[in-house]
C-alpha cells in the first residue's frame, strides 16, 4: 500500500463536495478511478516520485452521498473539469482506469488543449458484448481483477456498501458497450494516448485495445504481460515505467533508451 504521504483535500464543483488525494511535485497527473472507487495502489506511489499526482473520487463513490444527479459520463467529465479548475491545474496529464478511462476520454474531449497526454488503463469505454464489472464476494471480485490473487500478500479491501451505492451510477455512466457518439468524437481527439491492457484481463477483452488504435489518430497500445484488469496493482513497476516514459516523450517513447553496455 501507499508509503508516499498522499494528502487529502476536498473541492466543490457543480454542487458536489469532491474528495481527492494528492502527492508529489512536478507536472500534474490527474487520475480517475475505476468502478470500484478510489483506491491507492503501489503505482500511485511510484508515479508520485515524478509527477504531482491528483486522484479524484468521483461524486457518488466512496463515502460521498449517493449521486442520482449525474446522467452521463459527459456530465461527470464536465463536473471533473470544474474540480480540476478549482484546484488550479491549467495543463495536466490525465490517466483513467477502466470506468475512469471513459471519464478521462470525456475530460480530454472537453478540456481541449489542456491535456498533453492521456493514459488509459484497461479502459471500459469500449467493451466486448456481455462484459460486466466484477461482482460477488470479495474473493470473486479479486479473481476477476488480479492475475494471481493467491500470490498477493493482501487483497485490497472492498466496501460492499459503497460498491452497491455506486452501482446504478456506474451502470448509467458506462452506457452501451459500443458508444457511437463517443467513438465518433474519438476520431478527432489528437491527444497522444497510451492504452494499456493486461494480457490476462478477464473483465474487458484485451482485444478491445486495437479499437482505440483504429479510432484515435495518436494512440499507442501496450500489453502488460501477466497482468489482469488491475494492471497497476498486478505489475506496478512495469505499469509505471511505460506510463512515465510515455508521459515524458509521447510518441517518441518508441525509441529505446536502454543502455546495453555491460562494461566500459
Amino acid at each position, binding site marked *: 500500500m501507499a508509503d508516499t504521504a498522499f494528502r487529502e483535500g476536498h473541492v466543490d464543483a457543480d454542487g458536489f463536495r469532491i474528495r481527492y488525494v494528492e502527492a508529489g511535485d512536478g507536472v500534474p497527473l490527474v487520475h480517475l478511478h475505476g468502478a470500484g472507487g478510489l483506491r491507492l495502489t503501489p503505482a500511485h506511489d511510484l508515479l508520485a516520485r515524478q509527477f504531482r499526482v491528483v486522484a479524484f473520487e468521483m461524486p457518488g463513490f466512496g463515502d460521498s452521498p449517493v449521486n442520482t444527479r449525474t446522467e452521463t459520463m459527459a456530465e461527470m467529465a464536465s463536473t471533473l473539469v470544474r474540480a480540476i479548475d478549482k484546484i488550479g491545474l491549467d495543463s495536466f496529464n490525465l490517466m483513467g482506469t477502466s470506468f475512469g478511462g471513459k471519464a478521462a476520454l470525456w475530460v480530454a474531449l472537453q478540456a481541449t488543449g489542456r491535456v498533453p497526454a492521456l493514459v488509459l488503463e484497461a479502459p471500459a469505454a469500449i467493451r466486448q458484448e456481455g462484459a460486466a464489472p466484477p461482482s460477488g464476494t470479495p474473493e470473486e471480485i479479486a479473481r476477476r481483477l488480479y492475475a494471481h490473487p493467491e500470490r498477493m500478500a493482501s487483497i485490497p479491501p472492498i466496501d460492499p456498501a459503497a460498491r452497491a451505492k455506486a452501482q446504478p451510477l456506474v451502470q448509467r455512466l458506462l452506457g452501451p458497450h459500443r458508444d457511437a457518439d463517443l467513438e465518433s468524437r474519438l476520431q478527432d481527439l489528437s491527444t497522444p494516448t497510451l492504452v494499456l491492457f493486461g494480457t490476462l484481463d478477464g473483465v474487458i477483452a484485451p482485444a478491445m485495445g*486495437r479499437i482505440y488504435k483504429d479510432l484515435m489518430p495518436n494512440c499507442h497500445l*501496450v*500489453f502488460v504481460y501477466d497482468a489482469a484488469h488491475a494492471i497497476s496493482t498486478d*505489475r506496478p513497476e512495469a*505499469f509505471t515505467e511505460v506510463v512515465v516514459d510515455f508521459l515524458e516523450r509521447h510518441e517518441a517513447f518508441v525509441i529505446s533508451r536502454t543502455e546495453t553496455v555491460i562494461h566500459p
Partner: protein
Amino acid sequence: MKLSFFETARYQASKPLPTEWPVPSGSYDPEAGARAYRGMIERLELVEALGFDWVSVSEHHYSPRILTPSPIVSAAFLAAHLKKIKIALLGPIIPQSNPVRVAEEIAMLDTMAQGRLIVGLLRGTSNESLTYDLNPLEARERTDEGMELVLKAWTEPQPFGWQGRHYRYRTISIWPRPLQQPYPPTFALGTSRESCDFAARHRLGCGVSYGSFESVGKATRYYRERCAHYGWQPVPEQIIYRANMLLADSDDEAQEALRKLPGQAPFTMRPGVRDAMMTLDSRNIAGEARAPIVSGALPTTFVGSPDTVVEQVRRCRDVVGAGVLDLSLHPPGSSSLDPLMRALELFGKKVLPRIRDI
C-alpha cells in the same frame, strides 16, 4: 497415426572427436559438414517417397551430434528442396531467442513453404542454457512469456508494445503474417506442468519426447485434463511423441543393437558444470519432479522386429494418446549411416503401412 522423421543432419567425422560438450569447433571439418547437409536432402527425398507426413528439425548447439543450431535455417533449406512433406520446426528454443524475430521468421517460412510448416516452441535441453548465457533459473519464465509474445505477434492486427518481465518492446507489427491463419499448427513442447498448461490455455498441441509411454503418458493425460478445464478437447494429431526406435528384421537383432548403444551421451558437460546444472535446472513431468538429462543417453522406447514395433505403436497410442510419432530411427551421432538407412527402408516397407490406421 501420422509419421514424422526426425532429421538431425548426420555429420560423419573424419577423425575421432573430443567428447566434451561444447565440442571444440576447431575439430569441425567443413567438407564433412557439407556432406552432412547434402546427405540430409538425399535421405529426405527417400523419407518423402516412403510416405512420411512430416520431417522435423530441432535446435542444438556446439556439437556435431545434431548439426542444426538454427532450426529455421534448416527448415528453410528443407522447404526449398522438398515438395510435399510438411516441415516440422520443433525448436526454436524460445528463452534464448528474440520472440518477435521467431514470429517473423516462422511467418516468412510458412509463406515461402506454401503453408507446409508445423511449429513447436520449447524451453530447450539443459545444456542449451550455456549456449547464449541463459540463466537456467529464468528459463521457464522466459519460455512462457516468449511463447505468449510469439502468439500475440502473429495475431494482433495493430502495432503494439509489450511490457513483459523478460521482454520489452515498444512497437511490434510483423510482416509477413503466416500463410496458415491465424498461425501454423503450433505445439508447446515438453512434459512439464507449465508447458502442458500453456498449450491447453492457448489451444495449442502438446509434444512430449523420449520418456517411457507411462511417463510421457502422465504429461499427455495432464494436458488433456487442462484442455478440459479450458473447455476443449485436443484431437490425437495435437499430441506428438518424439522417440528413438531400433528396428531390425528380428527381435534378437534389435535387442543386440540396443545392447551396443552407449549408455552415455556422446558429448558431455564437465562434471562440475553438470552437477551444478542438476541443482539449477528444475524439470517436471505434469508437476512431478524429474532430474534434468545432462549426460545420460536418451532411452529407446520402440525396439524389435516390425511385428513387435507395430504392437508397441499400438500400445503407445493407448497409453500416450499421441497421433503423431516423431521418430529417430538410429541414434544421431553414430559413426555409420548404414544402420539408419536399413532401418528407414524396413520401416517404410514393413511398419509404416501397418500403423497408418492406428
